[in-house]
């Protein structure tokens, strides 16, 4: 046949272009850029209609990135450390929308720590990505709360304080999905984003995302080199959309594969690597994080998942129509009620 090859579309009938944002203004090589690309890829592959997804961020280089993906999605680039609250409120507008948030380590683990932990404990349904570079990029290279002890930065001296481990904080706040990844491992980033977007609850995704301008020295734990040399994946992760057949490559011995069924019927397939790891055991997750810190490893993968807890929105018995489509007859009590209310007063 001679018909020209059609532009490739996904099941939503959209092309990759429909998921793009404006050109990035971040530094070339910044880890945040590669994560934005994986967000675009994940959403395309998940057949998400962009108008059915909201994107949020705080302030920072990382928080700028919602501009660089999903032009057709509503979003809010809010205040430093305050993504948690604005997203929480916005989700009530139309619970049929999904949400993705992009924050930084400063945005989340310093100024926004309180809000972060409360968003987590409320199980607000959002994929919460922390682009973690151990430094404040946008304000030019100060220590962030995730910087390791002994890190030397230009003009800043040596960090003396213990780093905050975002996954630990999330677990301690009873997160229902905790994962860690590395911007230098785009395939894993993409699969985890898909899993996070399919999770009905808070999905905390701590992605080591090197700042090539201020914190990419070889020995810095948030650098590309360190990450490449020390990454230790817990498992090989692949995401299988609902209705798709789960195909296991080759002949995999039974027991070496774990499957987690997500709320929307999709499956997260975890293939065992060296050791078996059970991501449904919080105690083990803490222990694993402790050990990986002690052993100087960047352990990546799905650290913890619990698909049983209700989300914040589930705890409100809301009408089926999105609240923001309700009109005066739904919202203003009838005139007759006024006398009754007055009669309730003394």
């Amino acid at each position, binding site marked *: 046949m001679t018909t020209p090859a059609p532009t490739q579309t996904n099941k939503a009938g959209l092309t990759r272009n429909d998921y793009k944002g404006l050109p990035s203004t971040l530094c070339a090589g910044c880890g945040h850029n590669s994560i934005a690309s994986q967000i675009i890829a994940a959403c395309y592959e998940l057949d998400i209609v962009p*108008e059915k997804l909201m994107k949020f961020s705080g302030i920072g280089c990382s928080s700028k990135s919602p501009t660089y993906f999903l032009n057709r999605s509503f979003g809010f680039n*809010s205040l430093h450390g*305050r993504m948690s609250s604005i997203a929480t409120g*916005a989700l*009530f*507008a*139309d619970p049929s929308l999904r949400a993705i948030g992009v924050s930084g380590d400063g945005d989340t683990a310093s100024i926004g720590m309180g809000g972060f932990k409360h968003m987590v404990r409320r199980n607000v349904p959002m994929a919460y990505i922390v682009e973690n570079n151990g430094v404040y990029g946008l304000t030019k290279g100060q220590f962030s709360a995730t910087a390791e002890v002994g890190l030397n930065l230009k003009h800043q001296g040596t960090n003396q304080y213990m780093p905050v481990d975002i996954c630990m904080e999330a677990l301690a706040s009873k997160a229902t999905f905790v994962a860690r990844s590395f911007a230098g491992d785009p395939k894993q980033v993409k699969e985890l984003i898909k899993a996070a977007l399919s999770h009905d609850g808070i999905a905390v995704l701590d992605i080591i995302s090197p700042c090539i301008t201020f914190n990419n020295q070889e020995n810095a734990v948030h650098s590309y080199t360190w990450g490449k040399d020390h990454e230790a994946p817990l498992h090989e992760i692949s995401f299988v959309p609902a209705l798709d057949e789960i195909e296991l490559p080759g002949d995999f011995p039974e027991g070496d594969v774990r499957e987690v069924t997500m709320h929307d019927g999709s499956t997260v397939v975890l293939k065992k690597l060296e050791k078996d790891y059970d991501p449904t055991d919080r105690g083990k997750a803490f222990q694993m994080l402790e050990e990986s810190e002690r052993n100087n490893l960047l352990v990546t993968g799905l650290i913890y998942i619990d698909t049983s807890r209700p989300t914040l929105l589930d705890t409100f018995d809301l009408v089926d129509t999105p609240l923001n489509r309700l*009109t005066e007859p739904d919202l203003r009590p009838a005139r007759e009620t006024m006398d009754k209310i*007055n009669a309730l007063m003394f």
Partner: protein
Amino acid sequence: MTEKIVNNFSLTIATVNGSGSQTANVTLLRALFKMGIPVSGKNLFPSNIQGLPTWYTIRLSRDGFTARRDEAEVVVTLNPASFARDLASVPPGGAFFYADDIKPPIDRKDIAAYPMPVKALARTADVSPSLREYIANMVYVGVVAHVLGIEMEAVKQALSFHFKGKESPVNSNFGVVQAAADWAKQNLTKSDPYFVEPMDKTSGLIMADGNTAAAIGSVYGGVQFAAWYPITPASSLVETLNVYLPQLRKTKDGKATYAVLQAEDELAAIGMTVGAGWGGLRAMTSTSGPGLSLMAEYAGLAYYSETPIVVWDVQRIGPSTGLPTRTAQGDLTETYFLSHGDKQHVLLLPGSVQECFEFGWKAFDLAERLQTPIFVLSDLDLGMNQWMTQPFEYPDTDMDRGKILWEADLEKSNGVWARYKDVDGDGIPWRTVPGNAHPASAWLGRGTGHDENARYSEDSKTWEANMARLKKKYETARTLIPAPVIETARGAKIGIIAYGSTAPAVDEARVLLEQANGPKTAYLRMRALPCTKDVHEFVKKYERIYIVEANRDGQMKQILSMAMPDQAPKFRSACHSDGLPLTAAWVRDAILEQEK
């Protein structure tokens, strides 16, 4: 005994915080109201859960004045700790009721002193020992009711209301009231001149506090989302939402058309509210001074991103933690200019419980019409005290959802629209909200510089043009906000400007000025900021303008001086702030002093 004084005096009750006296105090207030006597009640309570002295003052005014008075002719005390002070506070000729287990000498011959066997009578009550301390308060209700002449039937109605008609508590409490009244009948001889007699001045009125009115008003305004963090004196506003929303705003199948969420702090409370407002919901938060300060950054974002939200500030006295249970109008300038950068906000200033209700719904219309935060400034006096008021009136206008575009609108325009473009010449742009499925609907909200299409921009001209449009929008706001209430007076050379909860004191002060052969006054009560045309015209008409307010610095005077610098030399402050509501006598004297 001197001449009878009927329905025109104040009654102060001194008790211990947390002892359950509030039920007894409100019962007296309501019983008087039921008898048709104009009353007002003021709770002067400490920032403490249990143990510190607390006073409750009821004013009876046959002329209908409801402002606080400094003196109380009748004093009741159950508190040994404040006994001496309470006794000393009784004016000559006054009446003093005291629990007879407090035994200090009563060394005053110029007053009528009535002992009350509080403990002994409480012991006879038909309740469990744990409730005995609470029910003891009913002893003073009974004794005072008998000596002053408060009808037993009215007391019973008040109790029945308080206990929501539940027979058992009504009966046990009323039993004590009755026993105490009987005891008083047999054992006390009336020797003071203060009497209560039925009137017909409260029919058609209800009693409510401003926070309840604000909450119910918000429900009728269609509130869909409220986030808050507990703080006195604002907490009861959202707590009352939680009472009425389930009654009034569930669908037939029991589903909610609203959500109320207690946030982790005020940073989050306003952040959630901004998120919901941006999402297209009628969203509100309520707080008091300390919380308002925390909300500053998000208030600026709401202003600049043009997100409709409603913020109630039920003011208490500050700065800092201040006196958390005392009232003031001290947040005016902070709120007017809340957040950094160029901006001025729209403020609503309810002056009565009825206006708390009215602004409860109106604030949402204004917020959505103007796409800006609307701040409503109430205060502790208005918000937490019980007031007589006209019944709440059903909103007289349809909801105004403002300029919002849905899928069908965008189809018509072929998807052509711009989030921050002034297409109508009123400075107000059009908006879309999440969930709109049209492919041209989405935009990214931001606090950073943006062009008409909400795209990031650092261009100087774009910045300035946008800020000019926001200023134009503020001009439009002037034409939409509630107009002031003006009372002219023939021949008046001076004008009074007031706002909020000082209204009752000013109303009465104008009468007192007349009685003192003082100057005639015209009166303008502001109900909103910015200044409307009427305010400018009023100011121009009079030689001197007294601006009455319950703060130290004369904050409204500061704002008006900026708004009309050429008129500023006319302005005189009558401002005062000690945590208590202004009295009419103080307002009168403050004016007379400066008129000398």
